[in-house]
């Protein structure tokens, strides 16, 4: 049973999606991630830490590259800490905090760059193990997340307050709903999972801006292969569509788009305690509204560990009172 649990950890801990379209315009705040770790039993705390590097340097007009030259490149190095706690065997609480070590852009028409760093958003969520069919080895997990803009949103560079799209925090309260479906096969080394999510942002209404991020819809499909008990190789296809943003009630025509990326990944478990994850995100299709800077690649590396927390019995029994 313990071996089976560890196997589940290894398989599902590698369900790690990141969206590669976190490029130029209108995408401040934490990169959209989903760590679909399952198997967290009651009173089990799973802690994971990861670093993500993203680089964007190609302008697209529609679905074609263009030689438009405004920004030379944009990149970020983002560190993230995730906590997942099994409240019951069916309900899991999650939280995520991120820090931009370096978020910078370089202009193509002038030898200048802008750099920001600092705390991004804090994300809290809940996931429910709604359906479990042991015969078919099918599981369904709906989830809900709330993103709180606690980080830096007024960073400066010299005399300039940096624009919204390079600030570490999104500045906006966001809610995201998700559905994770996993399927295993009897006596097979393969496992599959599908992930659907949608994200809705609240309008930022300050003296500085009146802005609303476009809604974000994501579909991920992943196949995992376990050649040994400790290693899982995975490949996922990530589809993302972002609606156009709004500024002062007007639609920003050159924002949003549709993206498809391929994400190979490797997970390896050490001593049945630690799991190392690494992945690379490679865009394979982009169709943006108007002209936009798009992502070239994303790299990620993470480590996670589970802790079995003790449950403390009350010192005084109710009978005494």
């Amino acid at each position, binding site marked *: 049973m313990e071996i089976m649990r560890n196997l589940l950890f290894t398989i599902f801990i590698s369900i790690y999606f990141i969206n590669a379209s976190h490029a*130029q*315009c*209108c995408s401040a705040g934490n990169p959209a991630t989903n760590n679909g770790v399952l198997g967290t039993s009651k009173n089990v705390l799973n802690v994971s830490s990861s670093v993500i590097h993203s680089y964007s340097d190609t302008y697209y007009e529609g679905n074609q590259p263009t030689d*438009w030259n*405004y*920004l030379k490149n944009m990149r970020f190095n983002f560190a993230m800490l995730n906590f997942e706690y099994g409240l019951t065997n069916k309900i899991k609480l999650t939280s995520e905090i991120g820090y931009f070590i370096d978020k910078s852009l370089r*202009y193509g*028409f*002038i030898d*200048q760059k*802008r750099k920001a760093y600092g705390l991004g958003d804090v994300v809290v969520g809940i996931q429910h193990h709604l359906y479990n069919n042991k015969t078919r080895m099918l599981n369904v997990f709906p989830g809900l997340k709330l993103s709180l803009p606690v980080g830096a949103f007024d960073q*400066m560079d*010299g*005399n*300039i*307050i940096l*624009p*919204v*799209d390079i600030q570490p925090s999104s500045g906006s309260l966001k809610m995201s709903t998700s559905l994770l479906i996993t399927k295993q096969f009897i006596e097979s080394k393969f496992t599959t999972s599908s992930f659907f999510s949608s994200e809705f942002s609240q309008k930022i209404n300050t003296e*500085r*801006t009146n*802005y609303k991020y476009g809604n974000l819809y994501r579909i991920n499909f992943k196949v995992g292969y376990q050649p040994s008990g400790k290693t899982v190789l995975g490949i996922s296809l990530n589809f993302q569509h972002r609606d156009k943003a709004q*500024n*002062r009630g*007007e639609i*920003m*025509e*050159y*924002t949003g788009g549709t993206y498809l990326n391929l994400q190979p990944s490797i997970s390896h478990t050490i001593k049945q305690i630690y799991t190392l994850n690494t992945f690379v995100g490679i865009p394979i299709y982009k169709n943006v509204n*108007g*002209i*936009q*800077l798009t992502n070239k690649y994303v790299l990620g590396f993470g480590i996670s560990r589970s802790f079995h927390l003790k449950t403390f019995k009350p010192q005084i029994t109710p009978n005494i009172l």
Partner: protein
Amino acid sequence: MKAIRLALAIFSLVFIISCDKENKENITTEIPEIISLTSDKTEIKYGASEPAKLKCTALGDNLKYVWEVDFGDLFVINTDGSEVQFTASPCCMGKKTIRCKVSNSGGKVTESIEITIVE
């Protein structure tokens, strides 16, 4: 010995007075006043080919200039930060409000101007 003490006391007094005077030179109770915030263009094309040049003219001592816009790019083009150049990428089309904030120890004042970014 008394002479040394007297000399030290006089030196200290002179030092304190001079420091105080120096501090007073940097401290002002007068709030800055923005005389004008101007731009050579009210409409620019997205991209870097036709930037707008903005100038914030203010009265007061030890002024610090801070510029702000929600989307678009501002570049300081003079030493005290009172002049900037404004450009924007295609994403930022539409009306943009650019703010010039001028401050010193006496207070802070803000003036704004609108520039439209077109295709």
